[in-house]
């Protein structure tokens, strides 16, 4: 794409949405694969921006990893059709199919490309990568998963997502590791019920949207920018609320889906898994609080000529803070 046309973007976005619908509504595994391929095909023009060497490298890396996963998926589908005559859920072919879908999503242990690529994309592209690109692999995962394998993957996701984000200075990589951690929660919610997964996914997308729109408006990509910019108090407060909501702290919005999942876990006596879910959430919240604490307390310099005028855009920030705080309470009114 030589020019940065909105019409080009609209075209590819339309195909992107359509491809996910193809993938999840097909009645054959082959149709699913077709949807995944079209997804890749239409996402690449959105992220490749030839003005910048870093983004060219990033889009090529994305293409290579995703096409490798697609090839794997297609091959496993064909092996399944030709060799297996049963519909057993727990066997080795399902492990291979799940692995290829996990690689598509950026889940551990196939996550090594994910922070790398997220580092090279702009915020809006990151939003697409972290939310929309996860829909079709996850729904395909729900069609044919291997329970024991997935539980092991969930544990790896949680641990890697929490420990990987500890030593990061780039906001994008931080959100990437947080995304990997949340993937663990989402994969488990798939195993419980698809409705629950949809609920978790919608709330997660909303939280990520609020965070990313804040960072996008302030053009912040690294943590030093949190301290340098002369942010007014309400922006910092919004940052606090959104980060804690993403970490799953009550009474913010992000606690709601995690609460339901923990409920299911305890009812079905998955005690060890509950322990890991809790501990890794704590590590993530520790890291978020460290960032927010620094941005509130440290007052490195207030430069007069860098004045972050957010007067026109304050409504979005206020709205997102309001939603994050009050949605738990407001949701109880829905079911009255």
């Amino acid at each position: 794409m030589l020019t940065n046309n909105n019409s080009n973007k609209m075209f590819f976005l339309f195909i992107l949405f359509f491809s996910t619908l193809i993938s999840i509504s097909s009645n054959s595994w082959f149709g699913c694969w077709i949807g995944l391929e079209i997804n890749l095909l239409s996402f690449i023009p959105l992220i490749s921006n030839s003005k910048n060497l870093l983004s060219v490298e990033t889009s090529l890396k994305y293409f290579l990893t995703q096409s490798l996963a697609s090839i794997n998926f297609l091959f496993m589908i064909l092996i399944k059709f030709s060799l297996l005559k049963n519909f057993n859920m727990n066997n080795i072919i399902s492990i291979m199919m799940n692995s290829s879908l996990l690689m598509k999503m950026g889940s551990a242990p196939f996550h090594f490309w994910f922070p790398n690529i997220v580092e090279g994309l702009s915020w809006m592209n990151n939003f697409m990568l972290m939310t929309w690109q996860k829909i079709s692999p996850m729904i395909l995962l729900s069609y044919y998963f291997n329970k024991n394998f997935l539980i092991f993957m969930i544990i790896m996701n949680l641990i890697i997502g929490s420990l990987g984000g500890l030593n990061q200075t780039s906001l994008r990589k931080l959100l990437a590791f947080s995304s990997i951690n949340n993937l663990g929660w989402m994969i488990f919610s798939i195993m419980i019920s698809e409705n629950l997964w949809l609920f978790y996914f919608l709330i997660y997308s909303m939280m990520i949207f609020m965070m990313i729109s804040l960072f996008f408006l302030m053009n912040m990509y690294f943590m030093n920018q949190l301290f340098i910019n002369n942010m007014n108090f309400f922006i910092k407060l919004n940052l606090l609320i959104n980060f804690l909501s993403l970490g799953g702290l009550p009474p913010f919005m992000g606690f709601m889906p995690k609460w339901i999942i923990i409920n299911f876990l305890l009812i079905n006596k998955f005690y060890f898994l509950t322990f890991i879910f809790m501990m890794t959430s704590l590590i993530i919240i520790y890291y978020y609080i460290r960032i927010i604490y620094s941005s509130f307390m440290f007052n490195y310099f207030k430069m007069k000529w860098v004045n972050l005028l957010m007067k026109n855009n304050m409504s979005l920030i206020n709205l997102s803070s309001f939603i994050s705080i009050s949605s738990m309470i407001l949701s109880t009114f829905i079911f009255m």
Partner: protein
Amino acid sequence: MSLLKTNVITSVKYLRSFSVLCRKSNQDHHLKKCPILFNTQRWLFWERHRKGGYDTTIKTSNWEHLKNGLVELKHELKLFAKELKELYDMDPLLIARPGEIDLLWCFNSPTVLEKFVTTCDSDHGEGYSSCNLEMSPAGRALFHGYLDTRVPKDGRIKKAGYCAMRSKMQRKSFKRASTFDWHLYNTLVLKVRGDGRAYLLNISTEGYYDITWNDIYHYILYTRGGPYWQVAKIPFSKFVLGSKGRLQDKQTRMRFDKVTHFGISCGDKIVGKFNLEIEYVGLEFDPTHDEEFAYEMYKTDKYIVAV
């Protein structure tokens, strides 16, 4: 044509370095005897060698490799322990305060000089310049030598005359290649004492793919001769992209997160001695500098490709 005796290289590689369409000339015997470089022409599809074909490996036997490895093992284990401790501390450098210069290399002892490598055109028989990096009488690094633009008379190259010093590749423990991370900074600071010549500062950002292996960002540093030191603060936005010495049509901003090498070279076509004394090379964050890239890209006609 007189044959030139060049450096003794034990392995002689035979190569036709002229166009495929040329007829076989009777000067073949001359080319075969001359120790020729491996593959330094421009490949169409991909770069085969990271170093552009210059064979710089030192041939050692397997037994010597083993002995060297055992000596290095203790040092590498210590480095690894240090890295683990850093991970455990979880305290990365979050901010670079303005006005503070974080030094990359401070040349006040000979041990720092080992982190650099000097190259010149006479290393591979491509010229007659010489260069050296050592401690000066004032206790700082001195990059000096003699630049000679004479071309060796065996028809392989057209121009000669360069000398360069470059930092060695950053290594993590167990010799894993690593990069510099300069995202906190936006200015390069150098304290030098030159001799009035113009030197080229090169920041090399080898990426992941072979297309960008030769991407080097250049900046010409004009030095003042004279006994006084000069502090040069150069923002990264002023660096210009070049590949294999040729400035690219499509200019982009330098990437700060994965910088591989830093180097200084002298190639200003003036025959004679050169001396550059360096006290330190450092980085600074200048919040008042908000230029992203100094060179504009104009909208070109559609028949001009790759821009």
